[in-house]
């Protein structure tokens, strides 16, 4: 009988809970998109999954008329007041959803493998610098791909224990070489 030696990854991926940011859900008809871009000073990409950055604000296009905006908490009130003053000319809906979600960051050599445990979508096919709303097990999540093995995942807060439990199990399996 031979003795097998294994070199399993002791840290297959790193799971962090990121500090709170201000999150907004923006809905606007495509006819008013250009005008609202000018009013808010943000670029609203018109293709689903595309992202843009302006200063510290990040925008992800979730649907043909839906965007997710992330800004530092200090800029929250400024964005709300700018949008409110433009509302009469450019009808839209800007809803703050900061408290609804928690952002998890997955990074490390097997972060992609860990995500495939819960996401039915082909994660590897999402180009770096894009994002998508998708499923993780049965929780709807918004996934941001920041690098080949660097992801952020916005999870509705009531689903976080469930998502973390799955990722912890995946972590244990990857560490033991399963």
């Amino acid at each position, binding site marked *: 009988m031979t003795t097998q030696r294994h070199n399993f990854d002791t840290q297959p991926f790193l799971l962090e809970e990121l500090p709170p940011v201000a999150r907004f859900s923006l809905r606007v008809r495509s006819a008013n998109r250009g005008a609202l871009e000018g009013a808010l000073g943000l670029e609203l990409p018109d293709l*689903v*999954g595309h992202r843009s950055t302006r200063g510290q604000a990040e925008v992800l296009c*979730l*649907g*043909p008329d*839906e965007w997710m905006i992330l800004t530092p908490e200090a800029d929250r009130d400024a964005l709300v007041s700018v949008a409110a003053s433009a509302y009469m000319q450019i009808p839209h809906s800007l809803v703050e959803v900061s408290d609804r979600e928690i952002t998890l960051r997955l990074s490390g050599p097997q972060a992609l493998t860990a995500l495939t445990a819960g996401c*039915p*979508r082909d994660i590897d096919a999402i180009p770096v610098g894009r994002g*998508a*709303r*998708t*499923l993780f097990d049965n929780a*709807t999540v918004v996934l941001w791909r920041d690098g080949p093995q660097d992801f952020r995942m916005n999870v509705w807060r009531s689903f976080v224990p469930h998502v973390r439990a799955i990722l912890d199990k995946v972590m244990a399996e990857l560490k033991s070489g399963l």
Partner: protein
Amino acid sequence: MLLIQCPYCDEALPELEFAYAGEAHIARPADPSALSDEEWRDFLFIRTNTRGPHFERWRHIHGCGQFFNAVRDTVSDRFLMTYKAGEPRPVLNALEAAE
């Protein structure tokens, strides 16, 4: 896993992200109170129940959130095509010829 082409995301994505939403191209009567009970029953409940290509609505609920229409073969579960909501019903013969 069954992949469904979302016409809004322009990508073939796993079935789990989608939800079925009944038969397509059924217009709600403009004046429901003018209908007889039978006509109202037909609008609410009577569907074609096709064996073969079926026009149906789907929603990309765990993605872009949009409703769209699809032509699916109910025998083979194969999607012949998907198209945006509001577009006219495609001609079946042309679809079958393209197969």
